[in-house]
C-alpha cells in the first residue's frame, strides 16, 4: 500500500535532541516536599478529599472526581500534608495545591504488582482503573485518558495511533521511554485496542529516532495488527491531525475530533501509564521529564515525582548557568514560559527547558511584510498573518471567518515569521476574546 508518511506544510526547527537523547532515564532522588495541584488535566477540577495535617501514603488519592471529564490526583510521596493552598501552576496563575512534606519512608499505599489475569478484565473495569489512576495524556495536553477511550456509540473506531513522534525540539522523554520500556508500551497498546475493540494499531515515530524504530519494529514483529510507521522529520508531525494524516492518509474534518474518522491517538508514555493502571492499579505519580536547554549544565531525562519543583530537577542536572533567562514547561514550540522555578512537575510536563538570554531574547515585533511564509507552513492551511491582524484590530468576526478556531496553536507560523510577529499569541488571544463575547450574549 502506498502511504505518504507526512503532511503538508510544517517547518524544520533545529531538533537539538542530541543533548539528552543518549542519556538513560535517571531516577530522581526523593524530594523533600511535593506540590500537587488538584487540577492538572483539561476538564472539570476534582474534589479534595484530604485535610491539612493528615498523613498520606505514596499513591493515595488526594481528590476524587464525580464528573466524567476529570481525573483525581494522588500523593507522589508518603508524608504529612503541610498545607493546602494556592501555589503557582506551570500552566499559569495560582491553583489550589496539596503540599506534602516527605517522611523519608516513601511507602506505598499498597504493593503494586502485575495481576496475572489483568487482560481478562472487562472493558468497563479497565476504564474505571484508568480513571481512578488519574491517567491523563502525557504528551502535554493532559486530556483524561479514559474519556478518549470512551467514544460515543455511533463512532466507528477502527485504528489506534500511538504517538511516539516527539516533534518538539529538545525533548527526548518519549524517545527514552520507547527505548527503555517497549514491552510496557506494547502491553498498554494491546489494552487500549481491547478497550476500543479494534485490531489495527500504528506506532508513529519520526525518522530521527532510528534506534527506537528498530527496537519497536523488532518487538511488534511477533504481534499481529501492530505496525511501526516511520514519519518524516518535520514540525508538527506529532500534532494529532497531522499524525493521522501521515499514518493513515485520513483527513480529520475541520472542527472535528479524530474519532470522527475512526482514529484514537495516545502518547507512548500514556500507554505505559495505562498498562500500569490496568495491570497493577498503580496511580500516575511520576513521569519522565527531559531537563534540557542551552543554559542547563548537564541535560538529562529524569523520572520525577509529580509535584517536584522545577528547581530540584534543575539542581539534579547540575543547575543552570548564569546566563539563564527563561524556563519553559514543555517544548520550545508550544511550551509555556515560567515566572519562577518553584512550579511543580505536573502530568503534562514532558520537559523543562532552560534557555539563555540570547535564545530567549525577545526580538522586537515588526509589521508584517506579507512574505507569506506563515501561510506556506501552516499545517492547518490557514492565513495566520491575516487572522492575527484581524485580532489586532478587534475584527473578531473576520478572524472567525478565516477559521481562527481551526488553529491548533502549534506555533509554526510564529517560528518562521521574519518580522517576528507573535502570530499564535494573537490567535490565542482572539480565541479567548471571541469565547468571552459568546458567553456574554
Amino acid at each position: 500500500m502506498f502511504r505518504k508518511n507526512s503532511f503538508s506544510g510544517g517547518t524544520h526547527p533545529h531538533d537539538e535532541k542530541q543533548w539528552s537523547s543518549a542519556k538513560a532515564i535517571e531516577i530522581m532522588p526523593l524530594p523533600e516536599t511535593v506540590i500537587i495541584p488538584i487540577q492538572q488535566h483539561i476538564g472539570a477540577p476534582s474534589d479534595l478529599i484530604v485535610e491539612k495535617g493528615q498523613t498520606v501514603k505514596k499513591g493515595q488519592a488526594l481528590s476524587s472526581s464525580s464528573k466524567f471529564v476529570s481525573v483525581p490526583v494522588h500523593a507522589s510521596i508518603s508524608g504529612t500534608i503541610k498545607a493546602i493552598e494556592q501555589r503557582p501552576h506551570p500552566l499559569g496563575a495560582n491553583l489550589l495545591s496539596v503540599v506534602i512534606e516527605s517522611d523519608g519512608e516513601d511507602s506505598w499505599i499498597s504493593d503494586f504488582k502485575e495481576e496475572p489475569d489483568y487482560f481478562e478484565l472487562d472493558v468497563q473495569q479497565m476504564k474505571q482503573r484508568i480513571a481512578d489512576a488519574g491517567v491523563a495524556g502525557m504528551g502535554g495536553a493532559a486530556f483524561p485518558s479514559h474519556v478518549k477511550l470512551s467514544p460515543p456509540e455511533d463512532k466507528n473506531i477502527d485504528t489506534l495511533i500511538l504517538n511516539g513522534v516527539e516533534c518538539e525540539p529538545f525533548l527526548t522523554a518519549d524517545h527514552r521511554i520507547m527505548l527503555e520500556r517497549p514491552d510496557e508500551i506494547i502491553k498498554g497498546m494491546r489494552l487500549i485496542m481491547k478497550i476500543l475493540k479494534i485490531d489495527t494499531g500504528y506506532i508513529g515515530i519520526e525518522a530521527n529516532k532510528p534506534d527506537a524504530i528498530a527496537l519497536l519494529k523488532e518487538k511488534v514483529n511477533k504481534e499481529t495488527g501492530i505496525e511501526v510507521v516511520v514519519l518524516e522529520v518535520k514540525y508538527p508531525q506529532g500534532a494529532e491531525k497531522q499524525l493521522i494524516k501521515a499514518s493513515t492518509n485520513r483527513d480529520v474534518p475541520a472542527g472535528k475530533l479524530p474519532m470522527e474518522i475512526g482514529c484514537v491517538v495516545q502518547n507512548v508514555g500514556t500507554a505505559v501509564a495505562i498498562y500500569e493502571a490496568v495491570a497493577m492499579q498503580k496511580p500516575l505519580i511520576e513521569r519522565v521529564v527531559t531537563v534540557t536547554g542551552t543554559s542547563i549544565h548537564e541535560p538529562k531525562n529524569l523520572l520525577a515525582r509529580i509535584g517536584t519543583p522545577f528547581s530540584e530537577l534543575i539542581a539534579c542536572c547540575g543547575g543552570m548557568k548564569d546566563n539563564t533567562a527563561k524556563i519553559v514547561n514543555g517544548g520550545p514550540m508550544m511550551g509555556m514560559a515560567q515566572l519562577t522555578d518553584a512550579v511543580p512537575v505536573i502530568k503534562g510536563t514532558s520537559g523543562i527547558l532552560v534557555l539563555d538570554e540570547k535564545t530567549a531574547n525577545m526580538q522586537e515585533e515588526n509589521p508584517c511584510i506579507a512574505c507569506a511564509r506563515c501561510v506556506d507552513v501552516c499545517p492547518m492551511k490557514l492565513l495566520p498573518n491575516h487572522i492575527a491582524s484581524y485580532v489586532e484590530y478587534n475584527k473578531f468576526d473576520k478572524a472567525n471567518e478565516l477559521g481562527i478556531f481551526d488553529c491548533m496553536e502549534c506555533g509554526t507560523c510564529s517560528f518562521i515569521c521574519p518580522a517576528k510577529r507573535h502570530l499564535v499569541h494573537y490567535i490565542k488571544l482572539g480565541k479567548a476574546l471571541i469565547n468571552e463575547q459568546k458567553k456574554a450574549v
Partner: protein
Amino acid sequence: MERRFVISPSPHVKDGDSIQKIMYAVVIALIPAGIGGIYFFGLHALWVIAVAIAASLGAEALFSKMMKRPIQLQDGSAIITGLLLAYNVPAEVPLWLPAIGAVAGIGIGKMAFGGLGYNPMNPALIGRAFLMASWAVHMTVFRTAPKGGTLSGIDAITNATPLNVFKGAREILTNSVNYSAEQVTEATQAITQLYNSSGNLFWGRVGGCLGETSAILLLLGAVFLMYKRIIGWKIPFAYIGTVAILTWAFGGTNGLFSGNPIFHILSGGLILGAFFMATDMTTTPVTFKGRLYFGIGCGIFTFVIRLWGGYPEGVSYSILLMNLATPLLDRYTKPKVFGG
C-alpha cells in the same frame, strides 16, 4: 528574593531569518544588474544609482521624523526602492530626476501609508509612475547606446530601443495598406533582425532603462533569491509564461502563433519586473493561487500594453494595477482549511 524569569509567548525558538536579512539578500541579488548597467551605459549610471539610493534613505528618514515614527533605515527596504527606481530610468537622465522619483516613491508610495508593510503598491514603481507623468520625455527617450552595441540591438536601426522598433514595425505590418512597399519591406526586415538579436538581449547589449537590459545578470540574482527561498517561482513564472504564450499566439505579424516569445521575454523590463518587482512581498498576494493569478494578470496587462497601449513597454503599470488587486486576490483565493 526568589528569582524571576522572562515571560514571553511561545514559540521560544525562532527561525534565524529576519526582514533585514531578506532585504539585504535582495540588494545583493540586484548588484550584478547594476554593475552591468554601469558597464554598458557608463559611469553616469553609477551616479544615478547612488543618488536614487541616497534620496530614498533621506526621504525615509525625513518622512519618518515628520510623522514621529521610528527611523528604520537599517531594514534595507529603502535601499531596494532606490535601486529599483534607478534601474527603471534611462541611464543618461539628469541626477535630479532619480532624486525626485525616490522622494515621490518613498513619500507617496510608502510613508503615506504607514511605512514598510503597509504600502499597497510598490514604492519604486510609484516613483517611476510619478516621473513618467511629470517628465515623460526624460523617461522615454533613450539616447545612450550600450558599450559595443546599438540602442536597438540591431545594426539597421540606431535610434530606438528594441520594443520601440518592434512596435513601429508591427504597426506598419498590421496596417500595410497605409504604408509604402519600401516601408513594409524595411519593417519586415527589422522584425526579422529583432527576432535574431536575442544574444544581444540576453547579455544586455541593447538600449533601455539602466538596470533592465541584461537578462543574464538579472537571472543570476533571481536564481540566488530563489535558492534562498526569498522569491518563489509562482509569480515570475506565471507572469513570464503568460507573456510568452500571449505574444506567441497573438503577437506576430502573420496571423495566430507567429509571434516570437523569446524576443518578448528578453526585451524591455520583463525580467527585472517579473523577478524583482512583481515579487515584492508586501504588495503581492500570500496565497498559492493568489500568486499564480497575480502573475497571470501582470502578464495579460503587459501583453496588452506592449501591443496596443500608448507605450512600448507595460511592465510597471501592469504590476501597479495588479498590486491594487492584491487584497481581492487574497480574499477570493483563501485556501481550504485542512479537513475542511
